[in-house]
């Protein structure tokens, strides 16, 4: 038997949105709830094309809002279907209350989120304000950095979600990835289906074995049921890693929960997430090293569950670090939401490496490699314990 690795490679030029649609097709998804919003729309348009062409046998549900989109996939997943939906920005906000229901009911929904800024003022451009607002919804949250990774991660997300029984979202840069054409190697679809076998779940509605879902819980039960979500989400980190390794063995590509670049001997590390931030940080590492700064970069590929042990280990012995956030934690103790997460991870382990909170790329304000070189220079100059709003006219 030939393995997937031995088969002829199919490389297509795809945007991250199209890569997401191809992954959904490969995963043989049963039900897709469709509601348009920029920059997500081309995902579901492509899926609709696949369904129309007979390449994917899925039920497309045209809903009247994102609240309904999430509700529809909650219902379909409760009935045992493999489901998908996608949204961005205000759409994700409108879904918010149902996101908690999806995780509370332990439904393995997979959703793609090309991340976009929030109104007001209206912006269709990218940043991660929408994704960061879902922090405490109980969803597994990946943040991918290339169209290839979007494709691979959506397939992985189904396996993880169906193993730990939690919903998973795969976020990536709105526009800067969602609409950027790049090479994507596709897997053999039969092989993907073998990688994603259909499994029985305890929380499926079946007439022959009735259960009640979504029942009321009094104070004497609610806490335990929510703690189950906490335990499952924290425990999912191991599953995420195992599935990533298995995917690597089967298809030849794996990513880990953190991606690192030249961190081995680094004095200064920039922590980033998403394609534009990390891609530019990575280039800046080389440029900074040419200037004699021992620079390194880390990308958070998994935001929830937060890979706190790994981050802490990487930052324990460096001279200083910076976290680049493409979102503002309004009124919070730090400028950027992920900076606060990283600091908490360090504090919980008694590590006091000095850090800088960098906010950049808000509403898709252009981020340049040079900006990231500047961050390394600031760290080298001993700047710490403050928030820098980069690219802002102040």
């Amino acid at each position, binding site marked *: 038997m030939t393995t997937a690795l031995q088969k002829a490679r199919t490389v297509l030029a795809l945007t991250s949105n199209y890569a997401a649609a191809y992954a959904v097709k490969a995963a043989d998804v049963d039900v897709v709830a469709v509601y348009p919003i920029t920059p997500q729309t081309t995902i579901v348009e492509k899926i609709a094309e696949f369904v129309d062409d007979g390449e994917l046998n899925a039920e497309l549900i045209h809903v009247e809002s994102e609240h309904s989109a999430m509700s529809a996939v909650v219902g379909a997943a409760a009935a045992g279907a493999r489901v998908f939906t996608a949204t961005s920005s205000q759409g994700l906000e409108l879904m918010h209350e149902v996101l908690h229901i999806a995780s*509370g*009911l*332990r*439904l393995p929904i997979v959703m793609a989120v090309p991340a976009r800024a929030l109104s007001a003022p209206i912006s269709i451009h990218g940043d991660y304000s929408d994704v960061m607002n879902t922090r405490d919804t109980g969803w597994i949250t990946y943040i991918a950095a290339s169209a290839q990774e979007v494709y691979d991660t959506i397939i992985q997300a189904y396996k993880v979600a169906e193993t730990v*029984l939690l919903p998973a979202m795969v976020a990536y840069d709105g526009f800067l990835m969602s609409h950027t054409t790049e090479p994507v190697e596709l897997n053999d679809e039969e092989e993907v289906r073998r990688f994603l076998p259909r499994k029985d779940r*305890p*929380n499926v509605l079946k007439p022959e074995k*009735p*259960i*009640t*879902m*979504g*029942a009321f*819980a009094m104070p*004497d*039960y609610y806490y*335990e*049921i929510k*703690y*189950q979500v906490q*335990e*499952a989400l924290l425990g999912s980190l191991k599953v995420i890693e195992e599935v990533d390794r298995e995917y690597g063995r089967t298809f030849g590509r794996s990513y880990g929960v953190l991606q690192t670049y030249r961190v081995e001997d680094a004095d200064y590390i920039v922590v980033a997430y998403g394609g534009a931030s990390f891609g530019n940080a990575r280039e800046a590492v080389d440029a900074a090293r040419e200037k004699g700064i021992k620079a390194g970069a880390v990308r958070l590929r998994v935001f929830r569950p937060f890979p706190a042990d790994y981050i802490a280990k990487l930052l324990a012995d460096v001279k200083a670090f910076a976290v680049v956030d493409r979102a503002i934690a309004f009124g919070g103790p730090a400028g950027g939401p992920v900076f606060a997460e990283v600091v908490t991870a360090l504090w919980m382990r008694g590590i006091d490496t000095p850090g800088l909170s960098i906010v950049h790329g808000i509403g898709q304000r252009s981020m340049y490699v040079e900006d990231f070189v500047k961050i390394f220079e600031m760290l080298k100059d001993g700047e710490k314990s403050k928030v820098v709003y980069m690219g802002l006219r102040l």
Partner: protein
Amino acid sequence: MSLPKVHEIPIGGIITEPGSSRRNPTGGWRSLKPVLHDDRCIRCRICWMYCPEGTIKEIKGEFVVKGKKYQYKYEIDYTYCKGCGICAHECPVKAIEMVPET
């Protein structure tokens, strides 16, 4: 009574046993009790539809009330009737009366 711990509860707060609410006799909540006056009842079934606990029982048989023949009559299951009074409120002929529990 010791309540189940985290790992003893089915995930997602699902209830795996159909009809488990039978183990919760809500009749003990009642302070007012509905009394159905069969001689006034016109068999419209409105109380049966409205009762949130499904405690109005439809009994089949031959019933003659004030010279009229009926194929069924209604009774209240006081084990689960919690005394909310919706039946009495909705009854179009005031055949249900709420009286204090003794």
